């Protein structure tokens, strides 16, 4: 794992350090206990000394209690450290995403962020917990056991000294060899999951086009690759166990051979041989454990790389040092603005847009699919930065404002409306946390939402479900407008936000805007001519350029696009036949 990620351990440093310490103490007991047992057998039982057995037994019980205490403590600390580390990682990623600009958000898909926050972090958590438990245990176990072996027999210790690095090297080699295969497996896994997800989401499409067999064939192809890659990777790891056993058995045979000679020559006790063999097995299984953790860390590495990607993503938009926190008024100016989602050199979505709006005006924007209407207005609350030119609100370049101040004053209702799970009160209060009930109701009246909300059995306390699908499209749009109004903004932008609202209500909303918030600049994107007909200025966009500006009357005379749209809606039906 890497340093960047370890910064998230923070307050769980204590547990992260204590866990291995307790593990070391536990291991110490585990090494001493066999010695104590050997004494009971070699001295107590052999001599039939019951008192000795009881005495040594009591000591052993105390040692076992200590081992138990240390073991449980170590387990607890490791669990807390692992879970805590995971908690902090989740916290850090979530907070990081909150700092993201729209451009940052575009770069990561929602589902990939969710995966990183869940599956990937769980992988890292498990690897971390295992690491602090087992990686402390193994080296200590090896060293202590080796020391004990040395005190008993130098030649046998020598065998181990040679074996440990060789076996360790081989095990690491195996893990290293398997690693790239595992990476491949996980990449293919993503493809498999993606296919399933698409099929679940688009079940209706698959059925409507009778493409079940096509999809099954596609899936079989992928699942076969996953099978083959996974088998390949695991077959490499499968070398671990036989290699390990081969070494262990070889060492045991050698030990008995050498040890047997020593016993015969009376330079070694029989009990000692037994102990030495136990130590050897302990050492070798520690190595096995290391290789096990090693594999696990390698698997978690892919996950931690994905986490790191988010943590290292530079929030692309930051406040300038002496940011302005006061928006003087609702004037909006576009000075020769060009914009590309890909940044400089990319395909231009907006081309040389020059536009001047006075505070309090109502502006309509109309244009075809893909004409960059949304793109244009997104530059005003600085959701994206211009590629060239300059956008000013209240006469000041938007990049000079503190983001929070700017967005507080520029309120926007997005095309893709989202309500959150919670009551209607809670949802509207997104606009202003401290707003009174009366204030909430007032903005709902402005947005023509009060009527239907009152009709709900629970009124303003009605729960909105996740995704907001228990209110109709038109109701959702009006609630979103109310939410935006609660901010008391100097600029209000509606991005196709009344498409599902009937024309009469739509007109009422606009009337309320005119009467109740005359000083707020209102920018309305709409498909429906009637929604913008009475605006002070109508902007016709085509392919990222301003095609025409003027009142409805002017444009009807001068602008072909506007006239076509107007006619297709107002008297259109007939000439379609």
């Amino acid at each position, binding site marked *: 794992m890497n340093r960047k990620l370890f910064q998230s351990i923070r307050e769980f440093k204590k547990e992260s350090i204590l866990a291995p310490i307790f593990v070391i103490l536990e291991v110490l007991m585990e090494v001493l206990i066999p010695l104590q047992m050997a004494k009971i057998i070699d001295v107590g039982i052999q001599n039939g000394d019951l008192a000795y057995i009881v005495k040594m037994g009591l000591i052993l019980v105390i040692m076992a209690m200590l081992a138990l205490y240390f073991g449980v403590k170590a387990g607890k600390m490791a669990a807390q450290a692992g879970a805590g580390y995971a908690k902090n990682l989740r916290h850090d990623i979530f907070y990081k995403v909150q700092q993201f600009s729209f451009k940052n958000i575009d770069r990561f898909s929602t589902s990939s962020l969710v995966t990183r926050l869940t599956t990937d972090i769980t992988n890292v958590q498990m690897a971390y917990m295992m690491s602090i438990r087992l990686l402390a245990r193994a080296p200590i176990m090896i060293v202590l056991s080796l020391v004990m072996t040395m005190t008993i027999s130098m030649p046998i210790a020598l065998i181990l000294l040679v074996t440990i690095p060789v076996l360790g090297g081989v095990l690491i080699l195996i893990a290293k060899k398997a690693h790239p295969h595992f990476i491949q497996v996980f990449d293919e896994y993503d493809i498999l999951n993606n*296919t399933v997800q698409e099929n679940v989401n688009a079940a209706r499409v698959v059925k409507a086009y009778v493409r079940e067999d096509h*999809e099954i064939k596609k899936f079989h192809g992928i699942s076969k690759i996953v099978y083959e890659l996974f088998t390949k990777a695991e077959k490499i790891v*499968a070398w671990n166990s036989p290699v390990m056993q081969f070494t262990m058995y070889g060492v045991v045979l050698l030990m008995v051979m050498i040890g047997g000679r020593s016993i015969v020559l009376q330079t070694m006790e029989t009990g000692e041989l037994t102990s030495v063999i136990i130590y050897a097995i302990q050492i070798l299984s520690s190595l096995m454990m290391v290789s096990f953790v090693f594999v696990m860390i390698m698997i978690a590495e892919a996950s931690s790389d994905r986490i790191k990607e988010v943590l290292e993503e530079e929030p692309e938009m930051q406040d300038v040092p002496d940011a302005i926190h006061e928006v003087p008024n609702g004037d909006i100016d576009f000075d020769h603005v060009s914009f590309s989602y890909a940044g400089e050199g990319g395909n231009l979505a907006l081309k040389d847009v020059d536009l001047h709006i006075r505070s309090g005006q109502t502006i309509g924007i109309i244009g075809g699919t893909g004409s960059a209407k949304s793109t244009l207005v997104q530059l005003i609350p600085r959701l994206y930065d211009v590629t060239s030119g300059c956008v000013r609100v209240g006469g000041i370049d938007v990049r000079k404002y503190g983001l929070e101040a700017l967005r507080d004053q520029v309120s926007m209702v997005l095309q893709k409306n989202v309500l959150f799970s919670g009551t209607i009160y809670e949802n509207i209060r997104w606009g202003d946390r401290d707003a009174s009930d009366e204030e909430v109701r007032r903005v709902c009246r402005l947005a023509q939402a009060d009527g239907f909300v009152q009709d709900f059995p629970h009124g303003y306390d009605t729960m909105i479900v996740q995704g907001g699908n228990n209110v109709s499209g038109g109701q959702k749009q009006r609630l979103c407008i109310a939410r935006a109004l609660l901010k008391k903004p100097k600029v209000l932008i509606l991005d196709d936000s009344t498409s599902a609202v009937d024309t009469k209500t739509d007109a009422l909303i606009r009337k309320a805007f005119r009467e109740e918030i005359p000083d707020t600049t209102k920018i309305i994107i709409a498909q429906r001519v009637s929604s913008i007909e009475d605006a002070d200025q109508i902007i016709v966009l085509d392919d990222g350029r301003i095609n025409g500006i003027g009142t409805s009357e002017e444009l009807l005379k001068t602008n072909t696009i506007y006239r076509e749209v107007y006619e297709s809606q107002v008297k259109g039906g007939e000439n379609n036949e």
Partner: protein
Amino acid sequence: MSRAQKPKLDKNALKTGKRLLKYVTQDYKVSFIIVVVCILVSSVASISVSLSLKFLLDDFIIPLIGQQKPNFAELYGALAVLGGIFLAGVIAAFIYTRMMVRIGQGVLKKVRDEMFEHMQTLPIRYFDQHTNGSVMSLYTNDTDTLRQMINQSIPQVLMSLFTIIVTFITMLALSPLLTLLAVLMIFLLIFVTKKIGGNSGKYFVKQQMDLANVTGFIEERMNGQRVVKIFNHERVSEEEFDALNDQLYDSAANANTYANMMGPVIGNLGNLQFVLTAVLGGFLSVFGIGGITLGVMASYLQFTKSFTQPFMQVAQQFNSIIMALAGAGRIFEMIDEEPEVDEGYVTLVNAKKRPDGTIEECPERTGLWAWKHPHQEDGSVTYTELKGDVRFFDMTFGYNEEQMVLHDITLYAKPGQKLAFVGSTGAGKTTITNLINRFYDVQDGKIRYDGININKIKKADLRRSLGIVLQDTHLFTGTIMDNIRYGKIDATEEEIYRAARLAHADQFIRMLPNGYQTMISGDGEELSQGQRQLLSIARAAVADPPVLILDEATSSIDTRTESIVQRGMDNLMKGRTVFVIAHRLSTIRNSDAIMVLEHGRIIERGSHEDLIAQKGTYYQLYTGKLELS
């Protein structure tokens, strides 16, 4: 979405386990037998380390002590035999680990394939009743736990079981009396395991729940991240997240604490048993009760030490086995889900007209389709020309018994007609189209298609005859070309360009960096909603279907583009039947018949002019006096 189950080894879990084992034994019978034998060999080899030591010492080493010229030949001979056993063990381990990889991955592949194949047969109802997340998690989380269990737990448990049995027999042979103590110990072990396992299980369940909460919250907020930013709601989101995150920490820490406790507790119970055995054995041997000699005691104690080891290993697998069984249970639940029934036997075939006006079947695509209707009574086959005549007879329908969505719907669409449905959300517009293509089934004879009861038409053929463009446009990972081709797998590039031009999509596609070869991923997030709708219209256009259903297919397209698309579609569908659902009345104005739906009933019907003249609901909607909600 609380999918957590109480981790208990109940009857269901056992059944699941058996069924899972069947996957292994079915396809890998021989392999699995070899695996079991190899595990047995391997465990014998591992036990013989401690077992052989006693014999080597007693029979080959100790007798040599004190001899002037000790002859080690016999010892080496014995060691060679032991080496042979060890070698067999290593080879067995080599064989079974490799085979287990193949078996494990093979079973997983089979489970995945079966799940996916079965999922494709499930009715739409299934997808209505299960969240996408829970279906996804069958393929990810639940399959992962299975892998863990098959690859690690099964061999580990088998190995431990063999070791326990062999050790137990040896202990029994050495001293039945002392083994009684061991039996008591086993009960204590089981008791403690259950106790700790139960606690850990409780928290694992809670952890799953908390995890689901955190995931749900994250999903919602990540989807609404743009709104969060616009409202400067980052701080509040963070606070709410922290509260859920803390809960998850709590349950995760507790669950793992108990799981981690298992090892030391069992290990030290083993130590305790050692002491008790030593004291009791020492007592018995000193007083010569039960025929226990010092030698027996010494070797017996050796075994006591290795007795608890396998218990510990089984206990460590406990949680993963229970989680895997719960996962497998959910997987099987899906595989057992009733598939879409299809008792249809009328099929759709290409046809041509004989000079006398009758229809005959032909293999090539002629642009003329016919329903092939075999009659069971006399074995004859009749052909009916596909015209696109759809009729509903007094149909009432509900997604469940209690709540009817449609009432007494009677309607007829004559071939070549454009039929439109208007009405509020939930009025039943989409339901009607769902019934035409049999996403849901209705009573026999209530819907007829070219005079045939649609329940008699094979679903696949019925759907092939209907093109449908849905409001939610779903695209698949692949190029734009691939996505349009989805409508007709063998379409030529020329056909695809033509369809794209017809849907007015050609223009923007050519503007993309790689044109028709541009890759779309993640449901086409890089395209605007309107562009995605144009693509899915092109997809339907390339299929060139006899009957077309447009369900809010142009809702995100501006009216000017829409009228261009509409002209194209009208041309394509000349003489064929089209059903249109739309919110926007300009979309449907030129329909032959418009049905106004309210609460599942048709309240008005007629042409645009008729309805305007009636001055009813439609008129009010059209003049903007009424809102569609």
